[in-house]
């Protein structure tokens, strides 16, 4: 059953009843709200204002919008300078290019320099769709979480993306927020709490055999899978791990101690991503049998978002199939 304290949508399993929006939309709203609250908030963009939703900020605060052109290395260097001077910059592009192309600038001028630049990686995952493999970032969680000082957040829906944006605007730390292009159900509400570093058990079963730890759009799909598996007598609980760094080792350990098997689910390479981060915690504190839903050492390809999500197993059906295979 869903966890009532989280105040999720009251008809959460009726997908048709839920509004749908991309996490980039929630980010775009959150950015405007953050800018209304604090005039130090600025937006820098590498020629992708509309598709990263920076254009809403640009229309409202043109003087605080900085066009950088198709120059992701410079995007990060300029953001570092602004943050060092005292501003709160959000630097946005597609995740394939930032942090894809400018990792060294992020490492030395942002993370090692320890200045509060908020790195916004849009169009992450295969759900980017027809643009194909070049534009489907599947490595960014790994390359960002390995950096000391960096906060890594992957919002599960548009509303959580809005709250996460407001949270990283005030955390005074280098932060990475990972966003998707595809519209997905908004299953949290304005009242759902959000705090960086605090995972949420969004679906709790009695005596669960399986615990799913998911991030991004896989959280809602995992909830749907858990609901259906429960009807078949397979008890599953689901944790939304939207903060991948810092890891809440205590909550993950406790969650794993109550199940026989942990499944991690993310639209990312299985190597180095969220699942690996969970494995690092459990190997030390609560060795648990694990399996990984993610990209298995391959790139994506062109197709509609729904086709690709289905093909790579990032849907309710894919999760159910995966779990049944584990239990067979």
């Amino acid at each position, binding site marked *: 059953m869903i966890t009532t304290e989280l105040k999720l949508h009251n008809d959460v399993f009726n997908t048709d009843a839920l509004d749908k929006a991309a996490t980039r939309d929630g980010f775009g709203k959150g950015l405007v709200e953050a800018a209304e609250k604090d005039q130090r908030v600025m937006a820098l963009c590498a020629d992708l204002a509309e598709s990263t939703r920076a254009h809403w900020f640009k229309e409202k605060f043109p003087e605080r919008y900085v066009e950088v052109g198709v120059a992701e*290395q*410079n995007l990060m*260097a*300029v953001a*570092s300078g602004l943050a060092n001077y005292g501003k709160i910059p959000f630097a946005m592009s597609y995740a394939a290019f930032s942090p894809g192309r400018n990792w060294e600038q992020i490492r*030395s*001028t942002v993370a090692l320099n320890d200045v509060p630049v908020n790195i916004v990686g849009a169009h992450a995952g295969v759900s980017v769709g027809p643009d194909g493999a070049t534009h489907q970032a599947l490595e960014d969680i790994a390359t960002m979480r390995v950096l000391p000082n960096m906060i890594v957040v992957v919002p599960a829906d548009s509303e959580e993306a809005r709250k996460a944006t407001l949270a990283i605007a005030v955390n005074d730390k280098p932060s990475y927020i990972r966003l998707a292009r595809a519209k997905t159900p908004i299953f949290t509400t304005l009242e759902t709490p959000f705090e960086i570093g605090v995972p949420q058990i969004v679906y709790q079963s009695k005596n669960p055999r399986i615990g799913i730890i998911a991030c991004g759009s896989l959280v809602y799909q995992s909830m749907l899978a858990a609901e259906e598996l429960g009807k078949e007598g397979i008890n599953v609980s689901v944790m939304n791990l939207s903060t991948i760094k810092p890891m809440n080792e205590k909550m993950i350990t406790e969650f794993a101690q109550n199940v026989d098997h942990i499944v991690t689910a993310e639209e990312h390479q299985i190597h180095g991503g969220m699942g690996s981060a969970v494995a690092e915690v459990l190997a030390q504190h609560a060795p648990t049998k694990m399996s990984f839903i993610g990209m298995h050492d391959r790139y994506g390809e062109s197709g509609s978002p729904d086709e690709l999500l289905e093909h790579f197993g990032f849907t309710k059906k894919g999760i159910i199939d995966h779990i049944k295979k584990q239990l067979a």
Partner: protein
Amino acid sequence: MTDERIKELELKANDIRVSIIDMLEDAGSGHTAGPLGMSDLFAALYFEIMQHDPKNVDWAERDRLILSNGHTVPVRYAAMAHAGYFPIEELKTLRKFGSRLQGHPERHALPGIEHTSGPLGTGLGQAAGMAFGMRLDTNKQHVYCITGDGELDCGNIWESAMFAAHHNLSNLTAIVDRNNIQINGATENVMKLEDLSGKWTSFGWHVIEIDGHNIQQFVDAVNQAKAIQNKPTCIIAHTIPGKGIKEIENEFEWHGKPPTAEEEKRFLKELRTLRGKIEATHSQ
């Protein structure tokens, strides 16, 4: 500037050179040629040009000095110590475990270091970000960014050059240490940079070429840069790597090695002679 003032600054540059030789020999590793070549520029920056307060390093009204070629930081440490940021004796801790004087500068290690640097090509963008923020706040401070010439091979530099010109960041001045050497040899053999002045001009910058060992020329160039209100300025400072020590001047092998104890003795003797020459020249 009066002749007396120029003499004072040239003597400061000599003090900085002495400290560079001293600290690098103690460290047993580090870069010698670049810092010696930039000593006159640093004497002018810390003792004549920049608005700064060694006793109040976070002063909001300070000018910012971004050292994009972070490997030359011994010259900055030496200038800072002589300006009163920290005791001169601390220079001997350079590159040693637990030191505030990291091999490449660390913002959080030493107050007065504006940013962590060393990986080449990223300083100009950071300086442009600072300049953009200052202008937005209508603050009147100036941002100086020193780059090496070898690092102009980096694409990031030219992204930043386009950015600063596009946004008319006239409160930003780049100073290129044009010493013609990089690790693999002469810059023009490793990756041709000329026509360097033409490159900056075509990117939309005002360009001034100076003798980087002529303090008066440098101060004049900075004043000109500050007077130009519609574009950033690039000062190409022609310097001699290893300047002050004849036997190592222009030798690219000295880019990345320190003097031995014996060499130190010889070099310091030469700098004492140079000091005498500075005093004699300006008392005529």
